[in-house]
């Protein structure tokens, strides 16, 4: 256990703990905080009136307003609830990429730090956090809990990751969509190196089920810039056939292809109202997270 905790940078965890993730909408649950849940319902705190429509409970009709205006209005209240967040971490082979050129941390290491930081943050706010690891199928599932000690379970899960297998995000998401609690939060951390084109469809399904989805797209700078020189033989970390070439010959094409990939993902996310965060492992994690959380805060304030 000690070993696993040592993996996580204490500095990063402490800095993350100072940042508070604020919910975009109204906060569900009993714990009222900066998290706002978008879901409206009955609560002690009045929110607004709404025209009565058949199906609404009669006890929620504000008779005073009905007497004054001769119209039926139903009272609506803002609901403050505990947030349930499930972190989906891609543990496929491609996430295990370790650069031969520089000492940047591997994607898996970087992603693990990210997941730990987010979990710590959420648990500190008394939100329930769960962790699901997958490659082309679910490898391990830690259900969401809000207890502070749950952080240790998550760390334990992260300590035992060994990247392997092919990436099957779309299939895994499609499979999880039914099981994830409605109106919860889903954080998806992956490099999205998959040739499956059904990701958009799966995301759409999740959104339709009222899930708030955040995508963390983690890539190593080598994967973005292809900085290698000379004749190389590329062996796949997943199951693609081995390829021998001079990277110089295709660098331009590759960079264009990876940008297209990123842009396409970003575009899909924007279209679905999904938060997309691109993370380069060369950037420090705290800065990236701070930037994201600040960005979210600013959006909510708007």
């Amino acid at each position: 256990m000690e070993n696993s905790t040592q993996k996580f940078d204490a500095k990063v965890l402490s800095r993350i703990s100072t940042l508070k993730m604020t919910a975009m909408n109204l906060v569900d649950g009993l714990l009222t905080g900066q998290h706002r849940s978008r879901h409206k319902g009955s609560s002690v705190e009045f929110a607004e009136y709404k025209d009565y429509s058949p199906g609404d409970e009669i006890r929620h009709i504000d008779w005073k307003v009905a007497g004054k205006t001769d119209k039926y209005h139903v009272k609506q209240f803002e609901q403050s609830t505990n947030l349930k967040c499930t972190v989906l971490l891609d543990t496929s082979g491609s996430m295990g990429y370790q650069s031969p050129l520089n000492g940047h941390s591997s994607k898996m290491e970087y992603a693990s730090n990210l997941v730990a930081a987010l979990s710590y943050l959420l648990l500190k706010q008394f939100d329930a956090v769960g962790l699901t690891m997958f490659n082309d199928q679910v490898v391990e599932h830690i259900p969401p809990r809000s207890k502070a000690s749950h952080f240790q379970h998550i760390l334990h899960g992260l300590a035992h990751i060994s990247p392997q297998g092919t990436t099957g995000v779309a299939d895994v998401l499609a499979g999880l969509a039914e099981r994830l609690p409605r109106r919860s939060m889903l954080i998806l951390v992956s490099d999205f190196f998959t040739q499956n084109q059904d990701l958009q469809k799966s995301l759409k399904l999740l959104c339709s089920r009222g899930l708030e989805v955040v995508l963390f797209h983690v890539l190593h700078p080598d994967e973005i810039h292809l900085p290698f020189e000379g004749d190389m033989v590329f062996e796949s970390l997943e199951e693609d056939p081995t390829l021998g070439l001079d990277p110089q010959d295709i660098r331009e094409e590759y960079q264009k292809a990876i940008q297209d990939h990123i842009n396409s993902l970003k575009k899909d996310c924007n279209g679905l109202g999904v938060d997309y965060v691109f993370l380069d492992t060369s950037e420090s994690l705290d800065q990236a997270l701070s930037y994201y959380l600040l960005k979210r805060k600013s959006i909510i304030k708007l």
Partner: protein
Amino acid sequence: MSLNFSTPLFLFGLLGVSLPVLIHLLTRRQQKQIRFSAVYLLSQSKKRSIRKSRPNRLLLLLARCLAIALFSMALANPIFSFRQSEAFLSTSPSSIVFILDDSYSMGTRAKDKTLFDSALVYISETLKNFSDNSEFSMVLASSPARVEQDWTPDKSTFIGRLEEQVVSYRATHIGDAVGKAIKLLESAKQKNKQIFLLTDMDKNGWKEETFFGVTTPYPIQLLNFSQLQSDSNKGMVKSIKISQEFLTRSRLLRVKAEIKNFSSTVNRMPLSLFLEGKLMKEEFLDIPPRQSLIQEFSYPLRRNQPLNGKIQISDDALPADNSRYFPFHPSQNIQVLVVDGDPEAISHQSESFYLERALNPFSVSLSHIDPTISTLAELSLRNLSDFSVVILANVRELPSGYELELEKFVLNGGALLLGMGDQVDPKYFNERLGNLLPVRLESQYQVKEGALHLLLKNSTHPVMQVFSPKALEEMRRINFYSMYTVQAREDKKFKVGTWFSNQHPAVIESEVGKGIVVMFLSSLDRDWNDFPIQPTYLPWVQRWTQYAARGLDNIPQQDLLVGEPFRKNTLDSRWIVRSPDGNLHKLENEVFNDTFQPGVYRLFSLPSTDTAEPNLLAKLPQGAQPVGTFTVNIDTRESEPGKISQKEIENLLEGMKLEFLEPQIQSTQPNTSEGIPLATPFLLMVAGMLLIEGWMVRKE
């Protein structure tokens, strides 16, 4: 098709190709292996990328190598030819049998030389292309096929032997030659074995029965030289038939020559008759296409002598079949004049009765002896020059002055046979015929019945050789009652052919001038003996007549084909044969085999005193007498223009590895006029390669 280089030294420049290859290998970057995440994206990018570095570098290397190779080849002055390449030539040591068709059809002209000459040149040139450890042998394919050169690794020896070869007058015998080549290959040292068959594909040489059992696992290269033939064989003298027609005082020689036209048009050709080397007659013939025509010549013979002749047509591509020789012996039958000295009204009592029937037992002359019976009174009507033999049977006295005529007849080569009897006057014979008779007749010697017989001690005389011991025994039992005793003349030489049991001569023979005189010292009828009624009388009389007329040494087979052996039918004397090229050969055995040259072969009898040992004589020995001639001609089947097809050969040599090639004389210095020079196109290609190389470098 083939590509030759006139200055092949520059081909060493091809070694320069190794330079770019070396540079490429030295500058090749080390491949690094890396485990990467987005290989599928790399793969997609590679597919889309226009730049493909690795193939580019290889193409660059190829372009540089090609530029260097083409440049050195351009300097070597390449010459391209559509002719057959010498693909079969091997650089590894080989055992090669050359089957060379030296039949006379290979003597067909091809431009300035014959097909045979072309074949010789071809072999000489081909030898240069074989490695030094190769061995060679040569089989000549004319009949009979023979191994002319056994295995030799020495090319100069082989070429020397090759240069000795001349086209023969024989027919082809491919089957036998292939069989001999296969046998040779069995003793060959090298593993790589091949047969080269150089022939004009004349159909005559490919008889199916000759290929029975002929098979080999080794490849046979067939080179058809008939393709080189520039002119066609227009015609040939196919056959000659000789006949004679007797006129009153002379005879006519009739020569029927069959001439065949091989061309597809009417062929007008001169036809000449030569006798003893002199042109006698000439005719022009219009022979329809692909047909034969028989032309008859008549020539009056004034002398009663053998003749040799030749029929000749105009020259064409194949000279060997344009002439044909023939022998002519004016008389096949011996004309015999039997002078009956004691004719009787009852025929069987006549002196000549038994003699005539013995000489010619049938109405048709089967014995080749034509007897003419004459009484002394009729003798003046007879011309002795019409006869070869005169038999005087029991003649008392010849007409006055006739003895001189008889002497002249014998001196000129005639034969005189004498039979005794009661009419014979010894005084007349001894005085008037003293020049002819080698002995003096003394007196009649009479004995009791059973007291006198022939003493046939040994039968070495040519006349007696045909009699079996049984026949001789029969002859010994014949009773003689009377005979003439004789006494030798001192100045005359004579031989006793047969003796009586009382040690007196029975038959005496003597050469007088060119003729011969034979005396039988008893009667030729039944007056003095029982001989005429014995079965041995007939052959005895015929043999003596033929012997006297020198007809025992007749030549039974006078017109032979090339290669057919000449057989003589007598053992009594040694002969000399003078072949058409003038060489003299002793004929001591019965067979003369060296009949490989067409023409007239003359026979001479060798004098018994001559003891010259060598078989080949420098000149004719003194005293050698001409005894006859025979002619040798080519086998005209070889002249027929039919060629065997590739398919027919494949059927004949079924199961063998055959390759049909067109002969191509390959020279070490190729003639530019026979090919297309490629130096300029090669240089252009070099320029092209350099342009491509530059473009690729710039692109990179």
